[in-house]
């Protein structure tokens, strides 16, 4: 029996689950680095978070929404990974699970599942934990290379945390430079911080993979990081205040992770290219504003979440240029 269908009769090999798998692959290097520096606790948190997210999505789909099994598209795995990468490795596991619940059930499934959520699920989970458990969420274990059973590790501060708590008098002193880890340490990830955000190197590797596979375009990460670099750079040039030192700002904290993996999340970023650029620049400005002026040392998650809310508006005003129409 012949089949009849509408054109086009061929289809590109790219599928949703394929894209999601590629993102998971791109996230692996950052996870490996985290295990290298933070040991087994990091691995346990990653595993718990991924398992929690997948399980919650499965259970909610089965017993609450009565939909087909939606876990096969790997999107829950990504949410789990991203959530874990945004947590310190010393966080108690029940809190991780609470974050999973917030991410998957509240931020994703309540909105209608994959493709319909307004806010990035992993970031909602992280911000929820950050506000609910501020103490646990800001206790950063000191990285120890290859010390896998890193159980009762010392805690220290993140580079951004150090900057935040400098006294105004200290900031202009050259010596305070020694408070910060060297740049190469920040680049490979040998500093305190969340599991997945410490190593810019690993994140850039993942970025390269995503670009090669044409999963995302370079625009959002480039403009996001670029905006932060330029604003902090200009401020630093005029004030010589170490708190605004641009390289520290882009190498530490969640900027790389946020710019590469969370601001580029398909569902919660604008559709048109101009919209994406606008979105990224706004994220950058908000990040800098939060880092410089708020009580929090870190502003990436808030910046992205705030901009997520504006995506429908951005989509309305930034439409692609149509063929045959002069602007």
């Amino acid at each position, binding site marked *: *029996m*012949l*089949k*009849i*269908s*509408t054109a086009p009769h061929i289809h590109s090999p790219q599928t949703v689950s394929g894209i999601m798998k590629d993102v998971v692959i791109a996230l692996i290097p950052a996870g490996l680095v985290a295990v290298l520096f933070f040991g087994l606790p990091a691995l346990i948190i990653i595993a718990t978070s991924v398992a929690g997210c997948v399980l919650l999505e499965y259970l909610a789909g089965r017993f609450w929404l009565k939909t087909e099994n939606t876990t096969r598209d790997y999107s829950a795995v990504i949410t789990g990974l991203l959530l874990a990468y945004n947590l310190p490795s010393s966080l108690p596991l029940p809190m991780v699970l609470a974050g999973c619940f917030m991410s998957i059930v509240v931020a994703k499934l309540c909105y209608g599942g994959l493709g319909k959520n307004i806010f990035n699920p992993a970031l909602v989970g992280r911000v929820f934990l950050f506000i609910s458990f501020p103490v646990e969420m800001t206790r950063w274990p000191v990285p120890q290379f290859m010390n896998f059973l890193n159980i009762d590790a010392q805690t220290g501060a993140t580079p951004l945390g150090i900057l935040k708590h400098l006294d105004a008098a200290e900031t202009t002193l050259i010596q305070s430079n020694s408070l910060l880890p060297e740049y190469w340490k920040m680049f490979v990830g040998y500093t305190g911080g969340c599991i997945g955000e410490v190593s810019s190197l690993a994140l850039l590797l993942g970025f390269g993979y995503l670009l090669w596979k044409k999963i995302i375009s370079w625009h959002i990460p480039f403009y996001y990081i670029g905006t932060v670099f330029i604003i902090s750079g200009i401020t630093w040039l005029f004030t010589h205040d170490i708190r605004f030192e641009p390289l520290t700002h882009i190498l530490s904290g969640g900027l790389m992770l946020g710019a590469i993996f969370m601001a580029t999340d398909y569902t919660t970023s604008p559709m048109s290219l101009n919209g994406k650029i606008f979105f990224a620049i706004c994220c950058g400005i908000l990040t800098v504003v939060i880092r410089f002026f708020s009580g929090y040392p870190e502003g990436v998650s808030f910046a992205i979440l705030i901009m997520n809310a504006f995506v429908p508006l951005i989509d309305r005003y930034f439409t692609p240029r149509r063929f045959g129409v002069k602007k």
Partner: protein
Amino acid sequence: MSDTIITNIYVLDAIAVSAAIILYFVSKKFKTRENHKISEIDECLPQANCGACGKAGCRDFATACANSNEEEFSKLYCTVGGKDVMDKIADILGYSKQETKEETVAVLRCNGSCQNAPAKKIYDGISSCRIAVGISSSPNGCPEGCVHLGDCVKACPFGAIHMDKASQMPIVDENKCTSCGKCVKTCPRGLFELRPRGKNGKRVYVACRNTQKGNIARKNCKVACIGCQKCTSINSLVKVKNNLSYIPTTVSAEKYGAELAKTCPTGAIIYINGTEKTEKAHEKN
């Protein structure tokens, strides 16, 4: 401390008063005069916003009624609400009541179910009759029959049409059908027709729109009209045109229905004996 409180009270009061003044003038300036009868009529209407009356919705129909004179009013009719609603509106407007119109119901003029007309090909595309019709004939090969994708089900504002799983045909629930005519407009092959419900729900119609020659039509569908003219001998009002018989609504179903259905060699003529059908519908519910 008390100073602060008092200042606050003053400031807030001042804002409240100025806002009130602005609001007063704005509302006065932009006040729209609306015929109070519109809302009154609107309340009587079924609020299905189906557009069967030819207006954009119930509110629009109410406006049209309110602005009409007696002659214009006689042309307006809400098929969904029927006589009762139109009488109420006539009372509101003080016009004479409209004449009783015969109640109609949507009937599907195709019986090419998957039993009567087995599929010869697989349609692999989106569930839209319009798209399917655009790229080929029905799965059974009939160029004028139902394609079983249910645009009518989606279009019906009253949920009166459902897809029968066994036959893959849309079925009109005559208890729910308000004869708004949405399905008539939606079906890309124009298979629906609004026909009078008939006395005691008895009606007779040709369930086929195929204009092909008998042998070709029969090849695809067991119950196709083959244009054999037998039905014309029962009642001279029945006409066969383009190999397709059509029974006008003026033919009494009560008198000729059973006979017409019996005469048809292919079973394309369907006679519905009202009482039976309603009982069945109740059983299903």
